[in-house]
């Protein structure tokens, strides 16, 4: 497998960025819990395709996305519902609704497939955005690895108020005992716990891009050269621009 590197960037890039991104790239290529390696890499490719989708652009400018019908400009590999999930999450995520989610489930995707897909999409969005931010080309997608998905569903996952089942902190036991570090954690971390490796990837990337999860609730914690106030200003601005309620 090719090794992802930022050595050619015009600014020095901390080695832990490439290391974390390489870990995700390796995981991206391998079979997951609910998608094969080939399907996971196809999801990643579709993330990039979504940026140039004419339907997504039209919907983005419409009063409501439901007002615009049509077909996404897609790569023709994944099921239609999966394509819609990817494109909507990439280009218009703040107008996703429970009704839309239910339509995706009715179209045949499982909640487990959905969560793994979301985990892949958001990691790709983040890593590609990082590349764009430091002005380096997007990393070539990895070659898919053979094998079958594990179909592992954590026994502690159960329906709550979110659209997808999640694991409560007190039910994160056994194979999931490492997920939250034995501490209370935010819903945004638990959101991906139906596919535990998505939580692990989330925490791995966040620890490098932002802060290790165990330090987030400590207002004095910071990392790198920025103060915590500077970090939170960026975080708040990015979240506000995307109208994130959370």
């Amino acid at each position: 497998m090719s090794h992802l590197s930022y050595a050619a960037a015009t600014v020095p890039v901390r080695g832990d960025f490439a290391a974390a991104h390489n870990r995700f790239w390796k995981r991206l290529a391998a079979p997951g819990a609910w998608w094969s390696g080939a399907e996971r890499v196809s999801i990643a490719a579709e993330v990039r395709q979504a940026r140039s989708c004419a339907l997504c652009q039209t919907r983005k400018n419409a009063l409501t996305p439901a007002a615009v019908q049509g077909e996404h400009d897609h790569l023709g590999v994944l099921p239609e519902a999966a394509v819609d999930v990817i494109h909507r999450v990439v280009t218009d995520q703040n107008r996703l609704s429970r009704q839309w989610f239910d339509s995706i489930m009715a179209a045949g995707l499982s909640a487990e497939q959905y969560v793994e897909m979301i985990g892949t999409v958001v990691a790709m969005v983040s890593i590609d955005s990082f590349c764009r931010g430091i002005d380096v080309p997007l990393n070539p997608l990895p070659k898919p690895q053979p094998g079958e998905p594990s179909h592992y569903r954590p026994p502690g996952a159960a329906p709550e108020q979110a659209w997808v089942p999640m694991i409560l902190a007190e039910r994160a036991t056994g194979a999931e005992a490492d997920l939250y570090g034995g501490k209370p954690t935010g819903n945004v971390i638990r959101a991906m716990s139906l596919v535990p490796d998505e939580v692990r990837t989330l925490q791995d990337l966040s620890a490098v891009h932002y802060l290790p999860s165990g330090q987030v609730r400590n207002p004095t914690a910071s990392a790198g050269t920025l103060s915590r106030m500077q970090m939170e200003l960026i975080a708040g601005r990015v979240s506000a621009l995307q109208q994130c309620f959370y």
Partner: protein
Amino acid sequence: MIDADAAAASGVAHGDVLLALADAMVGRDDTALAQARDAALQTLGPEGLVDAVGVASNFERMVRIADATGIPLDDRLFNLTQDVRHELLLDSFAAAKEAVENDLRKP
């Protein structure tokens, strides 16, 4: 955070540069991003630029997780932020509206 001028006046060091970089990263204008990147490089230095890009790209991920999974606010966060959420008009965000309609605990 909604009003750039107000946020820049927050007293955070180099807040204007950080906001411009965040705006450019969320936007799709490559020229604006190049300008914001250059300003951040001059002001924060190369390590600061990379750190700032890292944080911005992290939250491009986190907002999508929150919006795509329909999670409610944590009780602790809900209780701590009611006043500031009202003041910053966060209740008007589309995802929050849907949550209210669904009687979930998003304000």
